[in-house]
Structures are given as structure tokens and as C-alpha cells.
């Protein structure tokens, strides 16, 4: 489902693409990124966001000045047991289909944090994608830090700003 805003930016992207042809570069749109706050001594956290690629690519890694190790993870429930795993080979994105990295699913794991991340800080995060030919490209974003205690959300979509329906 496309919001007006998304449609407009897709339109712009297409126009822009037309102007810069033939040097067409693949891009991935990153929306609503956020990182979960940590307390002193807590060595890992996660970044969440929505990703929309314009061609089939994979999210294969990332870099950030706040943590030396960045991994792409998936969380699964087996019965009532939670398991977290690195996604081998990266997270596949289909062209035009938004994939949401959110609690209960995928996240970008930031590991070995030397210091805590406080609410209100902005975390620079460079995401690395790999296209069908194996070429990599980066997309840089700034992800605000959200508190550990999450706002109450029901099962339905009701979270986070930036959505005009």
C-alpha cells in the first residue's frame, strides 16, 4: 500500500532516473529508522526501519561509529521459545516491496557498544546492499534513539510518526 508521500517520491525518483540515464544506480529507500536505547554496561542493541528497494537486492551488512560489529539478524519464535539468528547471505528485498525490520522479525544488530545510547541521540548508520550481480552499494541514514520502554502498540499498525494515510 503506497502513501501519497511514497508515490510522490517514487515519481520523483523515476523522473530523476530519467534525467541521469544511462548511469542508473540502484537505491533502497530507508524509512523510519530507529535504534533502541541501552543502559551503561549493556553491550548490544538493534536498529529497526522500513526498506524499499527499486530492484532485487540483499541487505548484507552495515557500519556505524557507535559499534564495531554490525550483523543482520532474524528473530523467530518456536513455540514460546525465542531464537535470534544471523541471516546467512543477507536479507533479500524484492523490487518495490517494503520490508519492515521490526521487533518480532528482522533487525540490524549493533554489537560490542563501547558506551550507552541515550534517548534523543542520533546514530549514523550506513547500510550495505548487494545486487543481483554481486555489486555492493551503501545507503547512509541517521537513526534516532528510542527508549527501551516501548510505547504500547496493539497488533495493528499504529506506531511512529511520518505516515499520512
Amino acid at each position, binding site marked *: *500500500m503506497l502513501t501519497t508521500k511514497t508515490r510522490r517520491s517514487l515519481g520523483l525518483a523515476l523522473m530523476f532516473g530519467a534525467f541521469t540515464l544511462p548511469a542508473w544506480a540502484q537505491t533502497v529507500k530507508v524509512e523510519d529508522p530507529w535504534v*533502541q*536505547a541501552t*543502559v*551503561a*554496561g*549493556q*553491550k*548490544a*542493541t*538493534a536498529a529497526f526501519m522500513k526498506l524499499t528497494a527499486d530492484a532485487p537486492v540483499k541487505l548484507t551488512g552495515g557500519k556505524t561509529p557507535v559499534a564495531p*560489529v554490525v*550483523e543482520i*539478524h532474524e*528473530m523467530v*519464535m518456536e*513455540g*514460546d*521459545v*525465542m*531464537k*535470534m*539468528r*544471523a541471516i546467512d547471505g543477507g536479507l533479500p528485498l524484492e523490487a518495490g516491496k517494503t520490508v*519492515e525490520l*521490526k*521487533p*518480532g522479525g528482522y*533487525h540490524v*544488530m549493533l*554489537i*560490542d557498544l563501547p558506551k550507552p545510547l541515550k534517548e534523543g541521540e542520533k546514530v549514523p548508520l550506513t547500510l550495505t546492499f548487494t545486487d543481483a550481480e554481486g555489486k555492493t552499494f551503501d545507503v547512509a541514514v541517521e537513526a534516532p534513539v528510542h*527508549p*527501551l*520502554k*516501548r*510505547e*504500547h502498540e*496493539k*497488533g*495493528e*499498525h499504529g*506506531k511512529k510518526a511520518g505516515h499520512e494515510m
Partner: protein
Amino acid sequence: MMPPLIEDGDTSGAPMNGIPLLRHACHTFLVILAFALSACNRAESSSPFHATELHDPTFGRELRLPDTQGRLRTLDDFRGAVVGVYFGFLQCPDVCPTALSRAVEVKRLLGEEGNRFRIVFITVDPERDTPEVVRAYLAAFDPSFVGLVGNPEEVARTAKEFRVYYRKVPTGSSYTMDHTATTFVYNAHGKLRLAVPHSLSAEDFAADVRRILAE
């Protein structure tokens, strides 16, 4: 073995425009189905709880671990309050904050009775989760939440007593913990009454706690 836990499947974040009517129809169907089932199998489905009700379980009978101040805690310390016991670890970026945020919301939904609902968090990663860090972490959710930090043997013994599964799993340069994400709920008399699955909503959880508070 644990009793089968109810999955209520409301974890999807997908937009649901236009679905309420359909959902209502499904709901009605399920209510009728549930009624039909209860008619043929009364004993099985007579539980008034959203979570799995436990009848004199032979597990979770003892809890004996040091808190983040080093004081030994037992279930007796919490008499008079409904207690939710949850096993987790601090490098868990996903289900643990979700479960603890839900507990905060349950407490809020209980209103004035909220101060008779306590959460006990037991780390399954005592190697990394020191008492100081656990204390700071829980304070970020609610100052009344109690953290218990045992040594590896004590944690293993406690998990066994609760039939909680946990396992260290290597991931890249580090390791993570697989663990049972169930919250075990005791009534004010110290009796284990419910196994609350991770997927249960705060609203249903709060409704169950309200009922347990009245026992």
C-alpha cells in the same frame, strides 16, 4: 513438558483497513465454535483465562536467587502481590524489551491495583548480565521490577525448576541466548497459576491478572 500455549497471532504490524468487518465475522464464528466445543468438552475449555491456566503444577514451586543488591529472594517475599516471573537476557534486542514493555502496560491497565502486580526478571546470561547492569536495565522500564542474578549453576537449577529452556548460541563474533519467553504468574498466595505466552496482548494479560488478584 509445558502445556501447549495459546498463540493469539496479533503480532503482525500490517495495516488492516477494511478488515474489521471480516474480523468481526471471524470472531463471531470463533465464538460459536468455542461454544460448540465447550458444550462437548466442558472440562477442557472452561478456563476463564486468556493465558494457559495451570492446575497445581509440579514445576515452579521454588525460587531462590540473589537480587541485584545481593539479597537472597524467594517467592515468600512477594506474598500479597501477583507476581510475573520472566527469564531473559539484556543483549536481547527484541522479545525481552517487548515483554517488559508489555508488563509496564499491564501495570498501567490495572490502575490502582497495579502496585499489587510485580515483575521478577531472571537473567539466563549471568556471564554478561552483572547485577549493576540488570538493575539499570529494569529501572528503564519500572523501578518496581526485581532482577535476579544467580551464578551459572543457580540459573541452571532455577530454569530446570521452571522447565524453562535456554541455550547459548554463537553468532558471528559473539553469542546469543535462545530462551523460553513465557511469563509465569503467581497469585497473591504464592501459587503458580498461569503460563502467559509471549504473544498474549497487554489487555488480555491485564484481564487475567485482575482475575488472579481476586483469588
